[in-house]
């Protein structure tokens, strides 16, 4: 495990995390941004980087959220928010859209998470609480479908419990599928060498290791 190669004195906010993710997406990539926090990443992609957004409900070349009279309820993203199309967009049906994901054609997928394990297991679809209504959507397909799966999340729960864990306790979404974890306190690369701390924010690396039990 090598040391962090960048650090800032302050913990990052959501926008700060989204900026880091956006900066790590290579120009020209095909990218799926999951529902919720990951959609913020779109705001920080350079317009000339040529990143093309996929939405699993059947579109490549998704544009920004629709405003006012742009709203068309036949043109929505996976979160069911009305969006726009960009030049060079295309529409396709659900089996083709998920074949695109599951066949490994997306370069990057950015997802939220309840927990990520040190070896890249992802838990982001179900809290497992009794009475909770299960709903998976495209989460499991996205988890296994992209060449790189990036997770964006706070590093700790509101109760202060780490969400980057030796082993997930929540129901799994996918096994060994996450390659990077972007959080308010640091950025982590997961893979064959275990957890590598790439950046720290508002915490010293030894303290971060202690907190996570690394």
């Amino acid at each position, binding site marked *: 495990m090598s040391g962090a190669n960048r650090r800032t004195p302050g913990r990052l906010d959501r926008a700060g995390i989204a900026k880091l993710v956006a900066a790590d997406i290579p120009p020209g990539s095909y990218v799926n941004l999951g529902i919720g926090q990951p959609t913020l990443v779109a705001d920080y992609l350079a317009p000339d980087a040529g990143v093309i957004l996929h939405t699993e409900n059947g579109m490549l070349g998704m544009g920004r959220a629709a405003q006012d009279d742009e709203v068309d309820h036949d043109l929505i993203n996976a979160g069911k928010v009305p969006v726009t199309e960009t030049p060079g967009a295309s529409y396709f049906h659900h089996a083709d859209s*998920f074949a695109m994901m599951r066949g490994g054609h997306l370069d990057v997928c950015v997802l939220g998470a309840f927990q990520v394990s040190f070896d890249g297991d992802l838990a982001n679809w179900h809290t497992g609480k009794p009475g909770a209504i299960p709903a998976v959507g495209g989460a499991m397909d996205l988890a296994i479908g992209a060449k790189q799966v990036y997770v964006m999340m706070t590093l700790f729960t509101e109760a202060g419990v780490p969400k980057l864990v030796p082993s997930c306790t929540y129901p799994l979404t996918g096994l060994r599928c996450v390659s990077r974890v972007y959080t308010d306190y640091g950025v982590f690369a997961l893979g064959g060498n275990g957890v590598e701390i790439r950046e720290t924010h508002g915490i010293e690396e030894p303290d971060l290791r202690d907190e996570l039990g690394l």
Partner: protein
Amino acid sequence: MTTICESADEAVAGVTDGATVLVGGFGTAGQPVELIDALLRNGATDLTIVSNNAGNGSHGLAALLAAGRVRRIVCSFPRQKDSYVFDELYRSGRIELEVVPQGNLAERLRAAGAGIGAFYCPTGVGTPLAEGKETRTIDGRDYVLEFPIHGDVALIKARQADALGNLVYRKTARNFGPVMATAAKLTVAQVLSVTEPGSLDPEVVVTPGIFVDRVVACPSPAVLAEEGAGA
């Protein structure tokens, strides 16, 4: 052969109690509300519904659920901000739920339409949704065996049909329509307009008429905006 129907009621005639009904749409986009309303009037009950979601607000699929016509629903994302009808039925034990990853739902429907007996699928391996299912390692990767989902009836929404039943769709409202059309014994499409054979460019037909049994024009369909968000 495709029949052009005069009304949505005629288009859903003959759907019987206990039928498995594939219902197009992703949330409200592509949801065939007029056909669902006709199915409600038709009276068929004890239905199994296969659809991405479990209804929004109080109209369309949600109204069918509220009327107690649905015994079981197979979907990827039942819980949405405006899925209160389903939520209440589920919590009170009055509806069965099978949650299926969205890509498996699409691929299982395609398999039904394509004559595939079963397929080894990369999604869901090692998760609770694969529990009890066969798995197999192929070229070093693990897969789960998934089976087709066949429908007795598919209710879908498209933009335009020609008189032979060829369909084109509109933007992301296309979603499950084309695969569901292939997976049911009886496929019914509601469209904005029905035009002459030859009016659609053969290069741009998305669903060939061979998959479409009945078409009905609903020139001013209900537009159900989402009351919340989900997936």
